[in-house]
């Protein structure tokens, strides 16, 4: 069964550093997303991406965040200057509209 692949599985970074989280969505899906889940809390929407541009973003997705699909297969989330409160599991997902989403296993980001 097709999978969404995320790397790295764990990332520890110092506050103020930039991080890039990487994802390979399912190849024939058209919609791509990033979600995050702070420990013990619900899964929260960050951003959706369609047709090579952001289609929607949440209040969490401020100027410190950016997304790219640099080569037609990878989908990246960049956090420019990490804060302690960015520590969370970050999930990439892809879908065809009207169907269930396929999530990756996540990247656990720890900001120290």
């Amino acid at each position, binding site marked *: 069964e097709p999978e*969404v692949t995320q790397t790295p599985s764990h990332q520890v970074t110092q506050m103020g550093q930039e991080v890039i989280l990487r994802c390979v969505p399912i190849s024939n899906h058209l*919609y791509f*997303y990033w*979600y995050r889940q702070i420990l013990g*809390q*619900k*899964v*929260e*929407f960050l951003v*959706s991406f*369609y047709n090579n541009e952001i*289609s*929607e973003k949440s209040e969490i997705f401020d100027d410190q965040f950016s997304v790219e699909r640099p080569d037609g297969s990878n989908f990246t989330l960049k956090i420019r200057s990490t804060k302690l409160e960015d520590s969370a*599991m970050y*999930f990439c*997902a892809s*879908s065809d*509209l*009207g*169907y*269930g*989403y*396929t*999530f*990756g*296993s*996540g990247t*656990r980001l720890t900001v120290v």
Partner: protein
Amino acid sequence: SQKIEQNSEALNIQEGKTATLTCNYTNYSPAYLQWYRQDPGRGPVFLLLIRENEKEKRKERLKVTFDTTLKQSLFHITASQPADSATYLCALVTAGANSKLTFGKGITLSVRP
């Protein structure tokens, strides 16, 4: 304000019984509703999707109902097994919202052998 509520944080049942999980929502007009399973430290796994014009969907031991008048979905697992122990998440997709999912907090199901 908009809310998605899942009726309790935890549900404990005996193996073989039917688990029923509830998802209520307010101030949403969902185009469809989805249920996911999440295991600790893992991403959500899609289980079932039901559209606003559908009343019921089934998949093997799983059944979901959707009542847009009550603004409620029920998720049933029949003949439950210890392997069904996980957190179950309800998620809404609203029409015109570019298909983003809005999740409830989830209910943790424990099935005792």
